[in-house]
């Protein structure tokens, strides 16, 4: 019995406490405040809104764990989306076939990866700060995107693209399926692969990791490449959901992804953080905005409440660490 509990505890990790509590609190508060909160409608709205922010958060998570940051995530996503849109348009537009779509997706993933490879190489070899490197990439991609689209929307896709954005399979929204597959992918990557192991080590101490015979440059390049690939997946989902591509889509998500990571217990300086708590944190954020929506609050107020929640969690975490220290002092 105790071993099972221990196992569950270690599997969830200490990072789970914050988002877990927030989840329970949000469900309780809104469940009491609004009878419609615990309903299929809420689930539906969360399920469709979650994946965009979620996929971008996954793209942000890996660089943060190495002690870096990727500020180019939204523009990488949209440039990848543009790539897909371009492939579709050049090959028949609304009449393009599934084969063309698949080719377009692969091209989009390639473009996302390219954005990551370039950032990764610059960060790994010049030791320039990831904020500066990804900021440069962000500005470059935004300019490039605005130039290519002249600031407008690109639309006119085949009919089968739509369901990828708002269709369901067996009652589960397609974007949510994509997102959950990606969450599980990241979970395995971070917990069970050499790259994941090295990501945490680099985030805590790059030099000590290098002295241990780890190819830190390769790991950093891979981390940013995977981040770029994840952006491209987000870009494809956004294209399908909005049925259009615009270089500025989801721009406001950028910093929310950083905050979602921290809410999920990720160490802002790298080295610590797990995927599942981040996933729960994302669900909490979406539940919060859906709940506020239900009780008739302004949509903009929801964003403000996100801010308050995050600050609240930081303070609670600090209080918890104080209590923990006093317990340890008394205990040992």
């Amino acid at each position: 019995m105790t071993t099972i509990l221990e196992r569950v505890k270690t599997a969830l990790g200490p990072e789970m406490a914050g988002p877990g509590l927030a989840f329970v609190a949000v469900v309780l508060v809104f469940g009491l405040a609004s009878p419609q909160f615990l309903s299929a409608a809420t689930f539906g709205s969360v399920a469709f809104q979650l994946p965009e922010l979620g996929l971008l958060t996954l793209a942000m998570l890996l660089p943060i764990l190495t002690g870096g940051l990727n500020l180019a995530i939204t523009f990488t996503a949209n440039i990848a989306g543009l790539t897909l849109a371009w492939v579709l348009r050049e090959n028949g537009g609304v009449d393009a076939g599934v084969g063309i779509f698949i080719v377009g997706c692969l091209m989009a993933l390639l473009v996302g990866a390219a954005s990551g490879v370039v950032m990764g190489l610059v960060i790994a070899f010049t030791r320039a700060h990831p904020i500066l490197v990804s900021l440069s990439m962000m500005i470059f991609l935004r300019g490039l995107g605005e130039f290519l689209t002249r600031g407008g929307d690109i639309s006119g896709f085949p009919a089968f693209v739509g369901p990828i954005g708002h269709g369901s399979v067996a009652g589960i929204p397609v974007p949510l399926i994509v997102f959950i597959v990606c969450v599980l992918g990241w979970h395995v990557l971070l917990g069970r692969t050499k790259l994941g192991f090295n990501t945490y080590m680099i985030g805590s101490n790059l030099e000590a990791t290098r002295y241990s015979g780890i190819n830190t440059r390769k790991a950093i390049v891979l981390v940013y490449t995977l981040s770029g690939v994840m952006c491209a997946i987000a870009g494809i989902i956004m294209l399908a959901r909005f049925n259009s591509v615009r270089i500025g889509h989801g721009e406001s998500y950028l910093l929310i992804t950083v905050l979602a990571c921290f809410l999920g217990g990720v160490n802002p300086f790298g080295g610590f953080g797990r995927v599942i708590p981040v996933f729960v944190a994302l669900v909490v954020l979406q539940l919060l905005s859906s709940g506020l929506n239900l009780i008739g609050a302004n949509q903009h107020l929801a964003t403000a409440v996100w801010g308050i929640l995050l600050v609240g969690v930081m303070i609670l975490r600090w209080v918890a660490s104080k209590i923990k220290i006093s317990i340890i002092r008394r205990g040992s």
Partner: protein
Amino acid sequence: MHQATSATVSEKPLLSLRNINMTFGGVKALKNVSFEVSPGEVHCLAGENGCGKSTLIKVITGVYRPADGAVIEYDGETYSHMSPVTAQDRGIQVIWQDLALFPEMSVAENIAFSEIVGRRPRLVDYGRMRRIAIEALARLGITLDVDLPLKEYAIAQRQIVAIARALIGEAKIVFMDEPTASLTQSETDHLLDIVRNLSASGVAVVFVSHRLAEVLEISSRITVLRDGALVGVYPAAGMTQSRITELMTGKTFDQHVRARPNDDQPVVLEVRGLTRPGQFEDISLTVRRGETIGITGLLGAGRTELALALFGMLRPASGRISIEGKEVRFTSNRDAIKAGVAYLSEDRLSLGLVQPQSIADNLVIASLRKILSGGLLSDDRKRGLVSRWIADLGVRIGRQADAISTLSGGNQQRVAIAKWLATDPKILILDCPTVGVDVGARAGIFDIVAKLAETGLAIILISDEVPEVYFNADRVLHMAQGRIVGSYDPRQTRLEDVEAAVYA
């Protein structure tokens, strides 16, 4: 606890503590400790890490408040506890190991900081600041450019700046926490001269150090603590290093030369004419199977650079390295590890171990391929591998998932050794393996080294403490200014002769 051999001190003590008890949570950090310092005396506070030395200093400086019943008599007044402000105002100064200086600020700003901060008008009088600084340095017989940022100076000079800062507040007693830990022998000698001058001018100095030789050289009395309790107060005259070690640890150690003949064993590592200009020149050496080669010399002699070249992290300009007869060229330490070279860094805190991460992860980091199962890392295999090494090397840990930083220096070093042994090395380079390790735990580390040598591992043991290599290596090489300038057989040379050559 046996009866303190009280050294005869005629004067009334400057500082006298009695009945000091200090409890953290359930842990008794200090048990009924008493402590006495005479004016102008150099007094050593000795004990292993965690014995209560730092806690005692913090009680004296007012950081901690001892349990009721404590008596602190200082300079004619009696207190039940100190406060940091009183301690400072009444001339009690501490120089912590990390010095607590501002590297970006000038020498003058660092020294006169406390004189300037909080004074009104809130304008900084740079002229006064420079005068204070120059005066304070002059008292120590030192001239530094007080306008240079502190970071331009080496650690030894920074130490002096920290001392100068402590002295501007009319100090009567100065506590020095491991002041020589990062100094070379000549810098240490210089520091000891400064301490003697201070003592002669009537300032009492309480010296906390791991290096017992200098403790014996400088202090008149030694107070030994063990597990938070007073062991005794002893006059330095007539004391020996091994006796202090015994008192500190409560165990007896016999040091003997472990050197054995290995000439019949095959050569594992052969280095010929290895050169990297400015760091090491024309280095040639051979290490045989089961042999331990000691390399000693002062800091900056090129020892670590040579080790890094053997580990593939520095590219030599010329010369060659062969392992088991095959010439090797490393482009990174990954090549070196594959070829069977392991390197234990001297800097365990920032290079040797990934401090915030777990014991288990630190142990497997260099041998991840061993815990792969079907292409993925296996938690079970990791746990198995870690348990085996923890048991093999006698590491005392709580849980495998605890941060490595929760372990003592000695246990951390064992994990670091295990991490390299897990890579199945043929050659193990140990760069100052006892830095930050308690005296009592050092012997344990060397027992492991001896056992490893018996299993056939070729070992290069680097240390700036000559006795360490003398007693634990089969051959001692002396490096100075990037060259090997001497080679000694411990069975045929006296320790004193090797020390004389190295510290000359």
